[in-house]
């Protein structure tokens, strides 16, 4: 302290350099946000502009034309995606939820920890590697590419995500509910399914939709499992078209009309994903499951 006399309180001097760094850092942080948001805005803008301009009825109702010919659409690919995603969800969702229930209700042991760790590990496995495995265990056995193989690959990708979110959601259910059920003589399986799982329904479904949205746009694991198809196919053991695959093929093709259709396909894909997620959330909130959570 320089003066102990009743000097007026000294104003804290912040050196110019420190002020400057402070402002520079703030400016840097703000500019990073702008730089990061720019591509997002650009991607959505292009998707909407190019996509809407390229969408037409033919795109939604016809199958692809031979290379180079103008016209045609991706109707079979949209249907194929729905088929593959249905198979994937039918396989993946029950298994994932089951594993999540195990972890939350029975999993406070070493086996449970192993399952937790492994599902985190599986979450990080590149999707193309999952594709190889589905190829090895389904395609090689069936001797040809199929919707079933594609669905299997997607199911393998869904299971770990669903497992972990289901566990998190079930752990949020207060123990008093379980105890109340036991106190009424309700057996454990009934308690888990009708009390715990029902209470957590909306959370669990959110987790399922997250996993669904993630695999719905996956292309890599379908390349050598579902393989793609230029025609309609409803058989599970035949090569099947899928929207992401078709977008990929068309995007890297040399034809302008296919590029146009790739944009339209991308827009349809995004709309399908968003509306599937929204529809399920709507049903959860108001429909048959209303008033659950």
């Amino acid at each position, binding site marked *: 302290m320089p003066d102990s006399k009743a000097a007026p309180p000294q104003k804290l001097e912040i050196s110019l350099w420190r002020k400057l760094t402070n402002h520079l850092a703030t400016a840097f942080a703000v500019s990073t946000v702008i730089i990061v948001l720019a591509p997002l805005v650009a991607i959505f803008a292009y998707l909407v502009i190019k996509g809407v301009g390229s969408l037409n009825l033919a795109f939604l109702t016809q199958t692809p034309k031979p290379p180079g010919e103008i016209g045609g659409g991706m109707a079979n690919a949209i249907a194929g995606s729905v088929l593959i995603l249905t198979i994937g969800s039918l396989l993946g969702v029950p298994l994932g939820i089951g594993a999540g229930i195990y972890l939350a209700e029975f999993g406070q042991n070493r086996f449970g920890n192993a399952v937790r760790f492994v599902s985190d590990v599986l979450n990080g496995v590149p999707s193309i590697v999952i594709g190889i495995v589905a190829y090895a265990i389904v395609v090689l056995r069936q001797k040809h590419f199929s919707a079933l193989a594609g669905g299997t690959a997607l199911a393998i990708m869904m299971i770990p995500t669903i497992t972990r979110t289901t566990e998190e959601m079930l752990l949020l259910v207060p123990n008093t509910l379980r105890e109340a059920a036991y106190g009424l*003589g309700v*057996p454990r399986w009934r308690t888990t399914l009708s009390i715990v799982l029902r209470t957590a329904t909306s959370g669990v479904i959110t987790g399922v939709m997250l996993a669904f949205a993630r695999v719905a746009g996956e*292309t890599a694991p379908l390349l050598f499992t579902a393989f793609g198809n230029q025609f309609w196919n409803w058989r599970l053991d035949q090569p099947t078209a899928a929207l992401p695959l078709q977008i990929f093929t068309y995007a890297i093709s040399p034809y302008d009309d296919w590029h146009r259709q790739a944009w339209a396909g991308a827009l349809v894909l995004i709309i399908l994903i968003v509306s599937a997620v929204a529809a399920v959330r709507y049903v959860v909130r108001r429909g048959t499951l209303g008033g659950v959570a």
Partner: protein
Amino acid sequence: MANRALYRPQMTGPQPVLKDGVKRRESLLVRASDGVLADRLFSWIIFGCALIVLVILALIVWQLVGRSQLSWHAFGWKFFWGQDWDPVNDHYGALPFVYGTIVSSVLALVIAIPLSVGVGVFTTEMCPKWLRGPLSFTTELLAAIPSVIYGLWAIFVLVPILRSYVQPFLAKTLGWTGLFEGPPYGIGMLAAGIILAIMIIPIISSITREVLAVVPQHQREAALALGATRWEMIWLAVLRNARAGIVGGIILGLGRALGETMAVTMVIGNRPEIAKSLFAPGYTMASVLANEFSEAAGDLYLSALIEIGLALFLVTIIVNALARFLVWSVTRGQPVRARA
């Protein structure tokens, strides 16, 4: 475990009296629920579901190791040092793919780290409260866009911009480093690095946000009380406390970048060569799988590709385990929601 006695409540006292002609009928569920059998069955089914998770990992390892044996016995470690990838003569060396994977991922990290840490710092420390929610939602939206759509956008928007503006500029100003020379195709390592950066920024920034949020408030207050400016407070009290977690987030982003397939395949140029210039086309491990796997004729060819898959699998597992450990050490087991 619930008390066993709870399963069969012994009612005492007067029993309900049934009218004549009415028979007590118990539904199947009620009867079954009385039994320990249903409970045991249920726990076995659930256990089976959990077991499936382990079985999947075992299947992946078993299939990848088993089916890559042929190539492993043919080339051994040299597989990863060999430079020529020659399906015609059945000779395989994976170095160009390993190189391409590493270079594109490192490039992505170099671009993504400052940007995503900046975004993380801005959202937790600087931005007004009302903006915080929409901002994190929007960055998270970036993570929800399918990879193939990133690729599509990159081909038709990013690559032309690179070709006509960015690459000539880089060549003129930084051409002397040797990293930016050669004809500006647009397509190539640089494009792959940039699109990967855009894809991993949401991961790194959301983890940064989470680890910054768990830095105790009194650390910030202490720094401010000592007269620190806001930036000094962030640097000394916040970033320093959270650095292990941020590094974890970065490594998680790296794991994603290493395994990313479609967007990279669409813009990297797919040529198995090692070039110093970032303008030159390259090839990554994931994209060679995407391009050649379904057309691989010949056992050795397929086996070599699967060996690349195995290497990719092992590397991403190690990287992810490391990242999760680091993030966990900061957030102390609080759930970190990262979709890597």
